């Protein structure tokens, strides 16, 4: 018989790791002054600037990044006009429009010759309150539907395990953005949703094996069955994480500045998703079982 790795035995180490991560990430997020919401969420300022011939978006972005300003740069109108829209969220958290504008203007004027600032405007968020609310509702709804489906296909306790792991992954990924000071814009939201999809997938493969192994009538305890199931599927879990990481890692290494943060969130999420399906999902199934057995 093959060797069974006692995953459940190490669960307390896993909890310690998770709690430590949450504490460190939260503290650092707090020290960074909270989450770094991007222009898509909080709005900002938008400048229309006419540049000299030969300037392109890559050059402008480079200069702005060097000065720690993250901005969306779009060429506007006819190509030969050399006009660009530069949108950036407010520079400081004080949300002072004039100061931010002054700062942005200074950076552009110091680094480019012959520029002409055509207009300065404030813009609101692309994701308004209404969208935020409906997104929240839909995510809640999708979690409920997932729970119901899993309760129907497996048992309620497995739903709980899968959802706990899911919430674990999403919360940690969001905190990771705060920890690393990543500006949360629409692409980052997509990255977090990707993690959301990946996490459940990974967990269910293990639960499917638990379900199958439980049908084999032996004297083994529930803990043994879980350990055995995780061990049997471990090669698959790691292989899948590895192949997905290939794609994301390539994006991280050669994706360039625009995709770097996006890829790093994904990278973190996949690692944490794999970890949680091994160490977080199953122990919670166990707890739920204990809890309900006591009551009964």
């Amino acid at each position, binding site marked *: 018989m093959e060797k069974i790795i006692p995953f459940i035995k190490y669960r307390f180490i896993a909890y310690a790791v998770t709690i430590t991560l949450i504490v460190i990430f939260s503290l650092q997020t707090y020290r960074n002054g909270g989450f770094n919401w991007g222009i898509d969420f909080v709005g900002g300022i938008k400048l229309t600037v006419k540049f000299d011939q030969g300037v392109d978006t890559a050059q402008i972005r480079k200069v702005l990044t060097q000065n720690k300003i993250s901005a969306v740069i779009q060429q506007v109108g006819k190509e030969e006009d050399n006009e660009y829209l530069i949108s950036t969220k407010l520079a400081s958290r004080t949300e002072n429009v004039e100061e931010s504008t002054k700062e942005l203007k200074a950076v552009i004027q110091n680094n480019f010759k012959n520029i002409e600032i055509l207009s300065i405007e404030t*813009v609101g968020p*692309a994701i*308004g309150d209404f969208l935020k609310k409906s997104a929240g509702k839909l995510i809640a709804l999708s979690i409920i539907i997932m729970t119901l489906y*899993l309760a129907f296909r497996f048992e309620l306790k497995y739903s709980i395990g899968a959802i706990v792991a899911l919430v674990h992954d999403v919360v940690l990924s969001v905190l990771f953005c705060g920890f690393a000071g990543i500006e949360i814009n*629409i692409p980052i939201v997509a990255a977090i949703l990707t993690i959301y999809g*990946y996490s459940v997938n990974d967990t269910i493969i293990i639960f499917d094996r638990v379900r199958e192994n439980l049908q084999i009538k032996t004297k083994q305890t529930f803990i043994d069955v879980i350990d055995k199931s995780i061990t049997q599927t471990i090669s698959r879990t790691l292989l899948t994480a590895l192949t997905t990481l290939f794609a994301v890692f*390539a994006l991280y290494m050669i994706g360039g500045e625009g995709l770097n943060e996006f890829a790093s969130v994904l990278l973190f999420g996949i690692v944490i998703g794999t970890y949680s399906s091994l160490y977080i999902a199953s122990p919670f199934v166990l707890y739920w079982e204990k809890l309900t057995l006591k009551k009964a």
Partner: protein
Amino acid sequence: MTRGLLYKAIFIICIVCFATMLILPTIGENTLQIVLSQTSTEQDLQTIKQRFPESKYKIVIKDKEVLVEGYNLNVAVMNEIKRYSGVVDAKLLPHWSEKALLAKKINLGLDLQGGSYLVLQANYHKIEEKTGKPLTNAEKNEITEQALELLRNRVDKFGVAEPSIRPKGNDAIEIQLPGVKDPESVKKAIGTTGRVEYRLVDDAYTQKANQWLKEHFAGKPLPEDQLELNKLTDTIKNAIALPDSLELLYYYERNPQTAKLFPAYPIVLEKKVALAGNDISKAWVAPDEYQQLAVHFNTTPEGAAKFAEVTGEKNHGKKLAIVIDDKVRSAPSIRVQINTGQAIIQGDFTYEEVTALARIIKEGALPVDLKIIEERTVGPTLGIDSIQSGVKAFIVGIAGIMLFMLIYYKFAGLIADIGLLLNGIFMLALLSWLGFTLTLPGIAGFILTMGMAVDANVIIYERIKEELRTGKTPRAAVAQGFERAFWAIFDSNITTLLSAFVLSQFGTGPIKGFAVTLSIGIISSMFVALYITKFIFEIITSRGSLKKLSI
């Protein structure tokens, strides 16, 4: 090969061919039609010829029309050519599969391709005039926010995926639409306020107004310019001493030659609105009793009460005007009381008008009039540099996955790689069919599903290996492996699909884009892993002599 396997083979080949044909408009050869002006010179033609070298493109020249056939002809090239001297127009001819199979080109989103940029200015004056007091900034913001949501819906209903809509300054809205094609119909939809009202006509004053017009304006057509028309309205109002409870508007008719609307005669209405657009709960387009297209509607319960009151006995013989955005478009006489809350809007409407009207009634009118004050094209938000490196990264990533599968699973890995390629084709085909707009979040969904696609293979292969270890023959191990892996793959994918489906209900924007690619990817990867690769294994193991499986 047994008969069953043969049928499967034919089925799979058909599906692959069909999918490939669907992607052709996006990646295949296209035709660009260039129309030259009558005064264009030989030099202009030479420039075009140089742009499309004959080694790569086929060029047909007919008088002042040039047809270029070849790969990589897209909207960007089309717009480049439009700016050449001597060129009147350039357009991409629809690909044959677009006509035959309803395939569409995959559109790239604002982040990857850019698009058109519109700024809409809100006109608060009208509201301030009506209420008689200036609006505070907070009120303005609230109105803008409401208008924003309605615009989002309208743009979405026009099939423009993934627009970016945000408030700008205090009284404007900025819209970016992906793709550079001229968004005429969308512009029309967002520029229409869509306020529908039923109001009673005051016959006495209408007569007075027309009488005055006859005496002072005899025979001349009414001015079509809005400003001049407003001036005229003021003059008439003063001349006939219109009371404050009434309002003078114009009845609009359609010019039979130009099909354009023009003000035909003045008509005086009560200011009180008998029934407004928000009293209507459901609206749809259907022919009326004269086989003319009309908008049919059901009112809300309160609307039904209001409608019954206005069509009551006391008003019989009076006219009830249908006012759309301050233009009177029809004014039938009231003959019977309508208690059911069901009615129709009849008039001289075109098909486009009735469908747009029904749609706008359903979604509600804009709380404020909006005017397009700026329109330009914009470049991609991500930058060409990021896009190129992103594409490179994507290819390297997929190549890495394929290489890994090949090394780790040997021959079986090759089958998984074929599956992965087929999966890519199927996904692109489905995205083309839906005319999907691909954005960065969409690509994230794509990468995730590519990862999940091999995942299904990994699950199956690991299972087969386990079965082989227990000493089963390759044939039995393959059969068992697929059977046992089935439910694991099914359950995990269905769970993800369910949540993706819920997220796709999210009106518009990145979340929807992500959810759609993810759903499509899940469906196609399940099909590939559980049907096509299974089929390949069935063929291999159907030769009973197979002793060892390369896995």
